[in-house]
């Protein structure tokens, strides 16, 4: 009965894994029990043989040619030159950053195509009525050029109908649209007023009151219809 109690601890003791107190107790039992002592000796020999065998299984030396063969294979697959950032966090983020930049560039290009032309850009210059500077510096639209304001929805102007609408001119560059053929006259008048050779107030007074004058429209006179004349179809035949 006592031997059964020590049966488990025999193996642990043989493995050298028994705690000091139980081991001392076991040793005391082995002093008086030949059967358990024999079992313990057998267990110890087994463990020693296992330890020796395991060590022997890994104690072999590699052949002298191993290193040479490894060098040969390394030469065959020598690591290609790597950029300095390979293996670092930079190396890991470079592809992601490059991808983000490409996306950003594409979005920017797309937005640029949708964005209206701004004054001063070549595109806006194309769409603003051409102007010329007079000798005095006043800017007057060229009468020979029709402003390129296209009706919204027209075939030609449907792509960017808002371009001209968004052109903002400075107050100092106010433009005057003049009837065809009166450009030179208006310019001369402008210069005369500007150089005070002509009095603007008197010119306006000569024009008369700016109050709207009611139109007088004479009533239409419609001749009475002659119902006895020939029918219209017959008349139109002639």
């Amino acid at each position, binding site marked *: 009965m006592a031997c059964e109690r020590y049966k488990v601890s025999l193996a642990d003791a043989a*493995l050298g*894994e028994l705690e000091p107190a139980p081991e001392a107790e076991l040793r005391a039992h082995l002093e008086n029990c030949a059967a358990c002592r024999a079992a313990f000796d057998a267990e110890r020999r087994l463990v020693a043989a296992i330890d020796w065998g395991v060590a022997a299984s890994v104690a072999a030396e*590699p052949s002298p040619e191993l290193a040479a063969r490894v060098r040969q294979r390394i030469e065959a697959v020598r690591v290609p030159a790597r*950029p*300095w950032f390979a293996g670092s966090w930079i190396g890991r983020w470079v592809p992601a950053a490059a991808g983000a930049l490409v996306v950003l560039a594409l979005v920017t290009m797309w937005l640029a195509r949708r964005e209206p032309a701004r004054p001063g850009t070549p595109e806006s210059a194309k769409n603003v009525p051409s102007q010329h500077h007079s000798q005095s510096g006043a800017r007057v639209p060229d009468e020979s050029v029709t402003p390129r304001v296209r009706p919204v929805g027209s075939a030609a102007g449907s792509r960017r109908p808002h371009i001209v609408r968004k052109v903002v001119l400075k107050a100092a560059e106010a433009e005057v649209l003049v009837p065809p053929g009166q450009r030179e006259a208006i310019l001369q008048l402008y210069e005369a007023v500007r150089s005070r050779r002509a009095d603007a107030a008197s010119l306006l007074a000569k024009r008369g009151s700016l109050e709207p004058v009611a139109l007088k429209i004479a009533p239409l006179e419609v001749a009475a219809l002659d119902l006895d004349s020939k029918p219209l179809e017959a008349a139109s035949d002639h």
Partner: protein
Amino acid sequence: MQELAICCTGSVVKLDAESTSDIDREFEQRLADCSTLAFRVAMGVLHNREDAEDVAQETLLRAYKNFYRLRERERFRAWLARIAWRLAVDRWRATARRERREVAAAETPPSLTVEELATRSEFQQHLERAMDELPEKLRLVLILAAIEGHNLREVARLAGLPQGTVKSRLHLARKQLAEKLKWLARDTKLA
């Protein structure tokens, strides 16, 4: 001369042609020091010299290819041991499957040569079979502890495990081997 980028203790160092040769020399030194470790880990799993040499070659080649990724150079041995272990276990599994398929009824593993059979003791053959039957996590610490008399701390560092885990696993591995081979002790073949 090629250019390698080597990471040292977390920092990136760009190597010129001259320092690349230094790195080659460093790897050459490690190759001399650690090729035996790789071979022995493989040998502990495979119990066959030719297979172990193949695995050791593959291990060292992989180590060379990925050397620049290893930030902590002092962990080279542990890193190498784990590569060798993984490759050896993969080879062992493939071999075991093939052998089971081809020679299911064979008494002894066919990978052993006549010379090996003649020189091996019966006990050693039984022991190696018993080792093969151990769970991998137990086998790993058993083999690492057997190589070059590594102590618990060294095995823990090589296996990347806490020392307490290594100790309990090592104990369990030896105990299971003893139970598997107890019948040999009863037959007094070890007397």
